[in-house]
């Protein structure tokens, strides 16, 4: 009996200490209800003492990036596509002083436009390429659009991202991977693209040798079939791989940072092994950094507990996807094992290298996206990176016990320390729609103006999630501006 009671006590303690993770249902930020109109109230947002935040544009549809022209005027891109398979028109808009917008350019049905930069008189936009493949677009101030590069392999879960121009005058951009962890499965059919492009899959940048792990699922291409199908890594749905099989690498590829001349031409590989290098920015010292949305607990090869990463991007380096998270292999210890499932096996028989230590680790499912560096000591935190956290997409990407992200954080890239900078007020964290307040919803980009006196936050707007997937709301996006208060005010 003593043993029984001891075990009971231990179990009770264990249950308490673990917060009964398995027993509790997911409580993500997007798991709520939303009724129009979106309330916008900067008083619901907390920023450090000495700073103020205000909204400068509202009712945008899926805004994702911001840039400033030579006269310091702000421009924002609207994506034209959102998870949930909602298509609108991608647009480059100028934000006028009164908060209204003027259309500079419109794209076709090949969003999402995921980011924009301005360099020497022209805009450069990353076109996600959900239907026709990714492109990098040059847009003149008059609205003329011409592609610098096209045919990028981004018809899957993740898209063509960036862009950022380096000191070398080259334009750097990212291409995310098609899948969660290398294997096309049910989750990709839920996203929508796997039915549209059943042959689409991840392309490695260099030749890779596989162990030949295959993952059995229902045949989602033939729902009436009772036969299961096997799918290997870097392969179309339903194609098995064998031990020692070599998958040929190619450029352009998935999970990579590439660059292209501003005159256009073939893309060059910079580094690979990322999952979704969404935000790219150069530090004041000229070093390139990229945020990387890490693994989800979904699909045929789910991965538990992998936080988003910030990398310093070094030429020729491999950064670990799909077998590592940071420096750690996915089969080490029990760190990445989903509840009641096997821990992920490694798909490579010979990894292409060892990933370096990340510059910082963010919260799991925070969707740490657009970033920029403070260059002005007047604003403060000079040399630190400011990162917009879009927030979790639970339950689609995996269960969470509370909303994750929905804020702006600052990162000391020398120490890896991550601190909140702008976050909704209240007893708990979450998007404004869940808190029933008027603050931040889903920050997706953070960008300083040219003189570094103001930090602009692009807020995508309302994106709810449930077991069916994503449910975005048009015309709920906002641009916020954070400035230093004048002394004595």
């Amino acid at each position, binding site marked *: 009996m003593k043993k029984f009671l001891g075990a009971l006590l231990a179990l009770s303690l264990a249950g308490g*200490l*673990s917060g009964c993770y398995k027993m509790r249902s997911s409580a993500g930020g997007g798991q709520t209800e939303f009724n129009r109109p979106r309330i916008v109230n900067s008083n619901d947002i907390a920023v450090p003492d000495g700073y103020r935040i205000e909204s400068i544009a509202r009712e945008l549809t899926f805004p994702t990036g911001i840039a400033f022209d030579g006269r310091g005027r702000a421009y924002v891109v609207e994506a034209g596509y959102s998870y949930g398979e909602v298509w609108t028109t991608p647009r480059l808009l100028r934000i006028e002083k009164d908060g209204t917008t003027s259309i500079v350019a419109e794209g076709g049905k090949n969003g999402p436009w995921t980011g924009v930069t301005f360099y020497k008189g022209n805009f450069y936009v990353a076109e996600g390429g959900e239907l026709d493949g990714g492109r990098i677009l040059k847009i003149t101030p008059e609205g003329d659009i011409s592609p610098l590069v096209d045919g990028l392999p981004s018809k899957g879960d993740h898209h063509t991202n960036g862009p950022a121009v380096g000191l070398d005058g080259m334009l750097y951009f990212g291409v995310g991977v098609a899948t969660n962890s290398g294997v096309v499965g049910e989750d990709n059919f839920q996203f929508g693209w796997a039915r549209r492009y059943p042959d689409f899959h991840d392309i490695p940048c260099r030749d890779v040798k596989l162990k030949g792990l295959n993952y059995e699922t229902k045949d989602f291409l033939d729902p009436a079939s009772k036969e299961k199908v096997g799918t290997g890594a870097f392969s179309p749905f339903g194609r098995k791989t064998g031990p020692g099989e070599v998958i040929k690498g190619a450029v352009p590829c998935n999970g990579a940072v590439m660059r292209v001349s501003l005159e256009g031409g073939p893309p060059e590989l910079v580094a690979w092994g990322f999952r979704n290098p969404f935000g790219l920015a150069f530090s004041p010292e000229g070093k390139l950094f990229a945020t990387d949305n890490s693994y989800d607990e979904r699909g045929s090869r789910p991965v538990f507990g992998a936080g988003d990463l910030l990398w310093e991007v070094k030429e020729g380096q491999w950064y670990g996807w799909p077998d590592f998270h940071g420096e750690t292999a996915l089969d080490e210890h029990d760190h990445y094992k989903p509840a009641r499932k096997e821990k992920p096996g490694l798909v490579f028989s010979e990894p292409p290298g060892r990933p370096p230590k990340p510059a910082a680790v963010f919260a799991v499912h925070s969707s740490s996206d657009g970033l920029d560096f403070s260059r002005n000591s007047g604003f403060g935190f000079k040399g630190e990176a400011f990162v917009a956290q879009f927030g979790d997409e639970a339950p689609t990407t995996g269960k969470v016990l509370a909303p*994750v992200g929905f804020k702006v954080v600052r990162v000391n890239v020398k120490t890896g320390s991550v601190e909140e900078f702008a976050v909704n007020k209240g007893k708990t964290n979450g998007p404004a729609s869940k808190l029933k307040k008027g603050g931040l919803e889903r920050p997706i980009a953070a960008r300083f103006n040219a003189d570094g006196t103001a930090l602009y936050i692009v807020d995508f707007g309302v994106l709810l999630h449930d077991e069916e997937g994503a449910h975005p709301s048009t015309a709920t996006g906002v641009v916020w501006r954070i400035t230093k208060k004048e002394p004595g005010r």
Partner: protein
Amino acid sequence: MKGAQMRRVLMLSIAASLVVSGWGCGCGSARRGAPVAGPFDDSQPHIARGKKVFEENCSQCHPGGEAGLGPAINNKPLPGFLIKFQVRKGIGAMPSFPNEHISDSELDDLVSYLKALRRH
């Protein structure tokens, strides 16, 4: 063991569970970030070291000690030995962190940091 004794131990175990899980202790908000709670004082070296251990190993599931993938851990009156037990054994969905991952001295610093964060 007699019936009354058994009941007492049973009640104790349930109460302990409730206390450490935060269900029954009215622990309040876990928000400790600078914009909400002001800057955190990490001037003491062992607190600063513990903060680094936390950021490298814990914050991705308990961002700033708040709930996220895992439960909040900065608003519960957990004694140090239970924190260490949890870190080493990894009960529930939480993975274990053996000595080669977090050394004993790092674990001491981590506990100091978590206690300081709780008071912040």
